[in-house]
């Protein structure tokens, strides 16, 4: 029998974060340079406070981004997700809340300390059954005349 898939099996371990006082220019740069679709906004205590994704940033197109802080643009994040939950539970939450990303918190810490992120793209990667690091191999196979 197949093992049930848990959130921790598919999530990205570790998070890239900013603080509520960081300006949107710095955050946009961080996302662009690291090809990130979202960054976590952490309170100075280390607790999750919100999330900034493309959808939170693009309304500021044409504005001077240095004038706005993360706190003004972020989507406040209040749910607590345990990495041991089955993936179906996470997907259900993402559909109902229209979330593209779920921040996974440490279940043993008292406060909401982030330990990873689960994005809808992780679900696509799971369905594709392509393992990370296998793209070069696939491309080589496709371009190698001997492989056909």
């Amino acid at each position, binding site marked *: 029998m197949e093992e049930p898939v848990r959130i921790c099996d598919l999530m990205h371990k570790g998070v890239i974060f900013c603080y509520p006082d960081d300006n949107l*220019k710095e955050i*946009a*740069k961080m*996302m*662009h340079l690291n090809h990130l*679709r979202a960054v976590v906004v952490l309170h100075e205590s280390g607790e999750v406070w919100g999330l900034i994704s*493309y*959808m939170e*940033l*693009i*309304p*500021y*197109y*044409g504005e001077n*981004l240095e004038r706005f802080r993360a706190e003004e643009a972020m989507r406040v994040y209040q749910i607590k997700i345990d990495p041991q939950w089955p*993936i*179906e539970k996470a*997907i259900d939450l*993402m*559909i109902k809340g*229209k979330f*593209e990303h779920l921040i996974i918190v440490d279940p043993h810490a008292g406060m909401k300390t982030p330990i990873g992120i689960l*994005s*809808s*793209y992780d*679900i*696509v*990667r799971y*369905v*594709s*059954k*392509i393992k990370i690091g296998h*793209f070069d191999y*696939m*491309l080589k196979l496709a371009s190698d005349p001997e492989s056909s």
Partner: protein
Amino acid sequence: MEEKVMQLMRRGVITCSEETNLQEVAQIMVANSISYCVVTNPDNEVKGTISTRSFLKGFMMDPEKTKARDILLPYTFTITPGSSLKEAVGLMSKKKIEHLIVVSDRPGSKAILGLLHAEDLIAKMVKD
């Protein structure tokens, strides 16, 4: 001068047919590092798009038996190369979508010219 969609859009789109199965669509998206796939019919007309969000709804289905047409989002929001970027941003924010398909503005033409993605807007915001 007002900035236009044509200045920022990606030329061409990655497509699949309505008959492509879910696993193959996922492979197309992962291998090309994209978060969407445009679904077209044999006449190359847009039938809809599959985004990462579509996979949430399709997760419980058999990825080898489920076809693109079963989970696609019928696409009703398009933009033309001559539209202003401000208009495009407004549409993306209002509809909460990360990409807009760019179609020809010639009367009667349904050709897909490209795509405007939120990522491209962010790249521009960083440079400005």
